[in-house]
């Protein structure tokens, strides 16, 4: 089981800020993005590649080949715009 978090535009578009996600096989960020895209509709819209998305595992920015372990907190969000 991993925890998924969504922030900012992504959270609003998906209408969800977090969910628990159960998975059996080894998972990378890229393969998780594929799974989420396959949900269709707004999920395909946001994760399908048209929009830039950043990912963090356990609160550290990662690239798409990063491996997700059981118990991880995985967050997706648009490029940051603070400051």
């Amino acid at each position, binding site marked *: 089981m991993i925890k998924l978090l969504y922030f900012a535009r992504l959270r609003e578009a998906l209408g969800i800020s977090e969910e628990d996600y159960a998975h059996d096989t080894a998972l990378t960020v890229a393969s998780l993005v594929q799974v989420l895209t396959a949900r269709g509709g707004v999920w395909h819209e946001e994760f399908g590649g048209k929009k830039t998305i950043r990912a963090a595992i356990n*609160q550290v920015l990662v690239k798409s080949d990063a491996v997700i372990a059981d118990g991880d907190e995985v967050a997706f969000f648009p490029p940051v715009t*603070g*400051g």
Partner: protein
Amino acid sequence: MIVRIQTEDFDAGAEIRQLRLSRADVGAVVSFIGQVRDLNDGTSVSALTLEHYPGMTEKALEDILTNAKQRWNIFDGLIIHRVGTLAPQDQIVLVTIIGAHRGEAFSACEYVMDYLKTEAPFWKKEQTSDGERWVDARVSDTQARSRWEN
């Protein structure tokens, strides 16, 4: 090293003063304040809402300050960043760097801002005369950060 994320406003003068008086060997104090502009990309802005990723944001800002201290000969640094809903002219962020000499303090302060802008998980949503809109990340911010990658 101080990192604070808060909804309430801050007293920049008092924060800068406290940091600059924290050591007797401080010669240079460089500060950046970011404030809400009434206009962005040509559209009038009536309010700005800042969202963040609690936990990760603090960690990201601490990492940025730690890296700045490793990279430059400075004594200490402070970041205060607000979240929640702000009005034009409200303060968003304060970064203060203290050191012996100005060159390194200037570079460190600009480095912290460039990384904060591109790596710290904050997101801005503007209330404008045309409705709400999420602020897009600027290519110029990524370019500014890339200066330091050598």
